[in-house]
């Protein structure tokens, strides 16, 4: 007899429906699995055999054919164990239920019949909702993650017999529910670092505030030990809170990559700081069947590259496309996948090899050409995509020990949130534009309108500072964010002149 079970596969960070067809017919006992299964899927046969037997059911000693449609996409992972097992049981008439064809199943089986958690539950459940499937059976341990999707019933199952009994109406599994709204409200901000703990560095803190408010990329330059890394680590604590959609998007990526902790929704913005020995593939994503890389794992959060010039040049250059398009498309023989990558880049670097060029206290031991070579490791096109450049100086002892009370991240975040809301409202009509950093030159002339006085000021800046057209636009975008932080709609000289302070560092530009 033939049975049809719904299941779901993954392409990038999106799920797609797969129909698992089982046919049990008379003949020599053979198990054949078709529909481009990979090794893990092929091994299903052994797990399914033992699981059925050890759960007290009969494994039919007949010719069994399993097909996974659509046949042209490659299936991977062990999440088809459960649908195959149920399919075989139905085809051998051990289950008879009219519920089965409305239900989507995923899960890995152990030899004893327990159902194990699988990767990518969130995109799978989201895909199920899109296909108007109302019931989903998922591994028990994935229930938290699955339950954030509203509008369909989630049945978490612990073992195979529980599922069989559910369909036989012997004993039903209870649908699992959780209130995500509540979860989000109770979002605990567990940041390890707070801006109040960082002494001094008012300029760097202000620059990071502007960066958080307009999603501008930042490059921090300074001698070793000046606190660049500390500032970057405290940075997530001033980022705007997540909306539900954003949380779902981030969770999807982490779910697919298998990095989801505690099977909860991702409640905080990701902060990724890969080591500088990272390869281009690890940064951007890849593999035979492409997996998301660091840029995608930092989606809607922060990608922190410490010691930027120490990264391989080829690795840094791959950042250019995602910085521009906010997504990466990875093409391999088996698939061409697009992962979202709308991250903020925070980079830090020393001004030279020894680290003390320009430091008033230490003497720099590098030659002029060494300094130039060091700064040349970062290409112009990459620098062009970084709006804010700041110098982080070493603090004197008195400044470190000062008792002055620093502003807490909480109160900075309030301003940032306000500025983001203003931007959301302003760019509601522009498709795909959410914050100031994304503005194109056309939009800059529309949203960064300058009065007569301001124009005269910018003209002076333009000629005095030898600005390029891009540098000019950068200042306007920053001024826009500064005005947003103050809740002001028109740009004034005050905003522009502050923005001028965050321009490209001279020693880099004039290299």
């Amino acid at each position, binding site marked *: 007899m033939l049975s049809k079970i719904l299941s779901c596969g993954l392409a990038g960070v999106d799920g797609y429906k797969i129909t698992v067809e089982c046919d049990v017919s008379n003949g020599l006992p053979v198990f054949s699995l078709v529909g481009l299964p990979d090794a893990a899927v092929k091994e299903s046969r052994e797990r399914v055999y033992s699981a059925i037997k050890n759960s007290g059911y009969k494994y039919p000693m007949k010719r069994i054919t399993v097909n996974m449609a659509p046949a042209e996409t490659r299936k991977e992972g062990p999440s088809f164990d459960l649908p195959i097992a149920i399919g075989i049981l139905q085809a051998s008439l051990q289950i008879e239920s009219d519920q089965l064809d409305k239900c989507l199943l995923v899960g890995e089986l152990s030899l004893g019949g327990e159902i194990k958690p699988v990767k990518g539950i969130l995109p799978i459940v989201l895909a199920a909702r899109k296909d108007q499937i109302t019931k989903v059976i998922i591994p028990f341990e994935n229930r938290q993650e699955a339950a954030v999707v509203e509008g369909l019933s989630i049945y978490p199952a612990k073992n195979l017999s529980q599922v069989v009994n559910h369909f036989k109406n012997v004993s039903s599994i209870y649908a699992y529910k959780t209130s995500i709204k509540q979860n989000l409200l109770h979002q605990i901000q567990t940041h390890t670092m707070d801006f109040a703990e960082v002494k001094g560095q008012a300029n760097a803190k202000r620059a990071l505030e502007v960066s958080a408010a307009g999603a501008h990329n930042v490059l921090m330059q300074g001698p070793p030990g000046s606190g660049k890394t500390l500032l970057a680590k405290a940075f997530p604590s001033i980022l705007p809170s997540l909306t539900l959609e954003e949380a779902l998007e981030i969770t999807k990526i982490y779910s697919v990559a298998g990095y989801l902790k505690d099977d909860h929704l991702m409640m905080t913005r990701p902060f990724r700081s890969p080591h500088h020995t990272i390869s281009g593939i690890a940064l951007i994503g890849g593999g035979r069947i492409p997996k998301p890389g660091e840029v995608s794992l930092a989606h809607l959060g922060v990608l922190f590259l410490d010691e930027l010039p120490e990264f391989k040049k080829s690795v840094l250059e791959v950042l250019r496309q995602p910085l521009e398009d906010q997504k990466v498309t990875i093409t391999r023989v088996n698939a061409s996948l697009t992962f979202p990558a709308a991250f903020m880049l925070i980079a830090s670097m020393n001004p030279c090899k020894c680290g003390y060029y320009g430091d*008033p206290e230490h*003497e720099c031991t590098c030659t*002029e050409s060494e300094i130039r070579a060091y700064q040349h490791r970062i290409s112009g096109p990459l620098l062009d995509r970084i709006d804010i450049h700041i110098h982080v*100086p070493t603090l004197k002892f008195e400044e470190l020990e000062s008792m002055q009370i620093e502003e807490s991240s909480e109160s900075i975040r309030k301003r940032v949130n306000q500025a983001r809301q203003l931007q959301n409202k302003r760019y509601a009509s522009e498709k795909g534009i959410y914050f100031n950093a994304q503005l194109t030159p056309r939009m800059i002339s529309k949203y960064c309108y300058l009065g007569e006085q301001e124009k005269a000021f910018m003209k002076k800046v333009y000629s005095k500072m030898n600005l390029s057209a891009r540098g000019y636009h950068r200042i306007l975008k920053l001024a826009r964010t500064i005005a947003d932080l103050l809740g002001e709609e028109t740009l004034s*000289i005050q905003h522009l*002149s502050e923005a001028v302070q965050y321009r490209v560092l001279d020693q880099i530009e004039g290299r």
Partner: protein
Amino acid sequence: MTDNIYWIWFSSLNKMSVIKKKAIIEYFGHPEMLYKARREDVERAKILKPKECDAIFAMKDLKKAEKAKHFIKEQHIALITIQDEDYPRKLRTIYDPPVLLYALGDTTLLQRDLTIAMVGSRKASVNALHEATKFGTALSKMGITIVSGLAAGIDGASHEGAIKHLGSTIAVMGTGINRCYPRSNQKIYQKIAQKGLILSEYFMDEPPLAFHFPQRNRIISGLSDGLLVVEAREKSGALITAKMALEQGRSVYVIPQNIETPSARGSNQLMKDGAKIVTEPKDILEEYVITVEDLKKSQKKPSDDNNELKKTGDPVQDKILNYIAQGYNTREQLLYVMQMTIAELNGILSMMELNDLIVLKFDQLYLI
């Protein structure tokens, strides 16, 4: 001046010291004689060791010189030999004068009465760079020719200052004359070639070898009446030049710099050793007051630069200028004394930068 092919060939002999070159010229009278001399004659002169003789005979080929001659003509490069009338008078008096100079630009500068050399660190502090430009401009405005070495940092800034207002300047290179080193000084090299003079004792295309630079320093000090050290590290090339200047009987002047600055330790040491301290351009001029007649007129002008703090008309900016002058030269310190927000301070600093009141470098503020 000459375009003699044998002179060009002679200058390409790089295995021989300057002293020996001078002795050879004195003995033979002309490089052509050396070229045509037999080996016994050269050995009989007892100037050169056999190995050096070998080197000469190995290089007896005029092909390179021929090429160089063609190039010199094309580029309007002049050759000045020690036997020429227009060989700089002051340079002739030193112990080891170059026998031949390649010159690109205005060769009349070599006959000027008053020349001052300016040297200093390649990685100078912002203040020192500013002083170098200021002194370069002020001194050249008084009709003094500025000599320096076209290196990065102080050298470049001195040339820049001198050439800015019709002033005259001479750059002495440590490479072949057709090679600009460091490359970052390309612009100023071209400017000097047009308006000033570039000198080199090395053959065309000679690379920037380390020993060239102390060697060319003797020409810098030799060409000038006095040497101004703007800022020098310990064991730096500028100190070598100062030593040579003293050996050649030239005066040495030093601009005092902050005693904390590591890049000024050498120049501050020179002051301790008795170099004359100068804080404004006229301090140098007064030493040569007889030579420069219009001293009285120009004396007033440069001293204007050094008066009290500038007034901006804006009370807040005045206050900031005041604090910077007192040594509160980071944003952090200014925030503390001014009691304002960083956003406000950054705005004001931009304004002051635009109006040329301050310079910001590595987050340190400097007055101009």
